[in-house]
């Protein structure tokens, strides 16, 4: 049981008289007080209970930024940040898919190979066979979707552990990728193709960057205001001060992303970042505001309970793996765009590990049912910031691997420790 931390306060001594209408108030009631003070007490309670949320990652990012900026004052330059943003996008989009799989409490080891497959399918269709570029991109993404659905079907319908299914996929699809690429070994991205634009296009206009930031902030404020208006009717109002605070937090987060266009020498707001943010916003909406998202969390938390609640568990599982495959293929196109074309080895190496590491570093639990879509962004920012910083310092890649490995371990340690604290505080 998880009520260890609860003191056995006798809450109601009036049990023999059931007819008496007792006000539904419990002395242990945890209601957030109105206004800013409420946020502070809530924050303190959460910290004590081990609900760290995104705090360790955000602190980690600040530390990374400060350390590298002190070592090399170009780290926070616009071009450097734009670099981080562009390199974050492809792997980050793949990490969004992994977040969904982790929410189910499963793992997808095939994302690297599926990314390679996506790139190979696009390159062969578009470059070798001269198919319409857009159509080739859509077919590549659909290939990923079908591959993911096949994994999901083996896992959900036949009951093969997802670990094994996707491990088989990892080997099988990378074999198919090499076979597809054929003798050439690599197919270069043609000039002016859609895929080249994915990471090659920048919005040079400053208005675009500030416009994006403004739209994001206004949309967020509007949604909060709308919520509070509807909350006025029931007894759960949300103070205006809280709305102001929340809205103020968004731009401080957003600035980091939109900053690239600020200084001279940078090429502007990268299209890749816009696409990545779009994927994040849609995925976050799906995860938190739709029935499907709720079902994913439920299956990840207690599959049997979900089944008894009438949720089609198999369908949820297949859909999640299909999403993972689709986003993997989409991310693979970004990687192809960055590396100048599809190759036999695209998506191999440490791609898979980086993607899973990003989701975990960002704070999504490996044990299912707990996590946020945004952890894909946060985790990927940590990994790419470290890489970018070490690149600027001229460190060898072997050092980068070691440091990234250490960061991953640290993230999992924080996850495990905070989970233990949550358990003893009766919150997990």
């Amino acid at each position, binding site marked *: *049981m*998880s*009520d260890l931390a*609860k003191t056995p306060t*006798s*809450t*109601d001594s009036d*049990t*023999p008289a*059931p007819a008496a*209408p*007792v006000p*539904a*108030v*419990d002395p*242990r*009631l*945890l*209601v957030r007080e109105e206004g800013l003070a409420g946020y502070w007490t809530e924050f303190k309670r959460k910290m004590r209970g081990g609900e760290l949320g995104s705090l360790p990652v955000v602190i980690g990012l600040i530390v990374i930024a400060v350390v590298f900026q002190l070592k090399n004052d170009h780290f926070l330059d616009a071009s450097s940040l734009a670099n981080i943003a562009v390199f974050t996008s492809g792997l980050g989009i793949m990490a969004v898919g992994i977040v969904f799989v982790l929410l189910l409490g499963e793992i997808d080891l095939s994302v690297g190979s599926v990314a390679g497959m996506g790139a190979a399918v696009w390159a062969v269709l578009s470059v070798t066979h001269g198919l319409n570029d857009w159509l080739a991109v859509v077919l590549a993404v659909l290939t990923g979707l079908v591959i993911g659905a096949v994994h999901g079907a083996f896992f959900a319908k036949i009951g093969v552990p997802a670990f094994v299914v996707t491990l088989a996929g990892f080997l099988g699809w990378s074999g198919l990728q090499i076979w597809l690429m054929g003798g050439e070994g690599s197919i270069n991205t043609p000039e002016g193709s859609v895929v080249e634009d994915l990471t090659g296009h920048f919005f040079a206009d400053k208005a675009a960057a500030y416009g994006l930031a403004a739209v994001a902030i206004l949309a967020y404020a509007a949604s909060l205001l709308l*919520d509070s208006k*509807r*909350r006025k009717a*029931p*007894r*759960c109002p949300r103070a205006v001060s809280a709305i102001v605070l929340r809205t103020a937090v968004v731009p401080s987060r957003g600035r980091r992303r939109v900053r690239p266009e600020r200084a001279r020498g940078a090429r502007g707001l990268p299209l890749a970042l816009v696409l990545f943010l779009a994927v994040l916003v849609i995925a976050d909406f799906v995860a*938190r*505001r*739709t*029935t499907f998202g*709720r079902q994913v*969390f*439920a299956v*990840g*938390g*207690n599959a*049997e*309970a*979900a089944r*008894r*609640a*009438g*949720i089609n568990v198999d369908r949820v599982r297949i859909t999640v793996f299909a999403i993972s495959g689709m986003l993997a293929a989409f991310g693979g196109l970004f990687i192809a765009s960055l590396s100048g074309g599809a190759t036999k080895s695209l998506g191999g190496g440490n791609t898979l590990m980086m993607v899973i590491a990003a989701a975990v570093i960002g704070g999504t639990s490996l044990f*299912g*049912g*707990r996590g946020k879509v945004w952890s894909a962004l946060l985790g990927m920012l940590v990994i790419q910031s470290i890489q970018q910083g070490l690149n600027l310092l001229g460190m060898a890649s072997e050092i980068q691997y070691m440091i990234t490995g250490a960061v991953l371990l640290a993230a999992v340690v924080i996850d495990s420790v905070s989970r233990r604290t949550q358990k003893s505080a*009766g*919150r*997990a």
Partner: protein
Amino acid sequence: MSATPVLALRGVSKRFGAVQALTDVDLEIHTGEVVALVGDNGAGKSTLVKTISGVHPIDDGTIEWEGRPVRIGRPHDAQNLGVATVYQDLALCDNLDVVANLFLGSELKSASVLDEIKMEKRARELLDTLSIRIPSVRIPVAALSGGQRQVVAIARALVGDPKVVILDEPTAALGVEQTAQVLDLVERLRERGHGVILISHNMADVKAVADRVAVLRLGRNNGTFSVADTTNEEIIAAITGATDNAVTRRKARTATAPKEGAK
């Protein structure tokens, strides 16, 4: 008590391979009535409940719903009729908050987006009418105590406004205080006009809330008693089969009126 029972089982039998789990079992539930289903381990209580909730379709006999025969082949059929079951293992998602658990599988939506505010409102109303006290409807179920989980699980069964609620050992793992709370809740269900089937091993609980006690022994009816005019000993005798021994059988043969409860 209304004339037609809301749910009636007539001569229900269920076999699992070579095992005859239920033989010719009869059971009637009226609205606003708490029927305790008691029996030793392996007596068939859980099997009987699973036939009603659609987990195990029956082999023989009929199930009548408000007077007309129905077929319950899947859990979905039972839910559609208005039978809600609270299983012993509660089947809650620990990682989701109370509101999400209450509406799991039947989320309220506005324009295909989850309507959290409406769900939270309805959840508060439901918990208030049942006088359920929990720290907050927005904390994960993992943070609740055993008794609080039990009442949340019961409240969850009521979201679809069922006519019959089946509670499988709701007090088995609870302390004194939490047991009292759950029993209060059972009484409130009766007041609201639900028919309640309560499975329990605890005679004190049964005596406290039930109107009638149906005893199962080795997959057969072994008497239905009115709680008001039956002693614990009589019920326990029916459960353990103490009424079924050489002495009583001889008595039954000599005096033609059998003293056993039903059958």
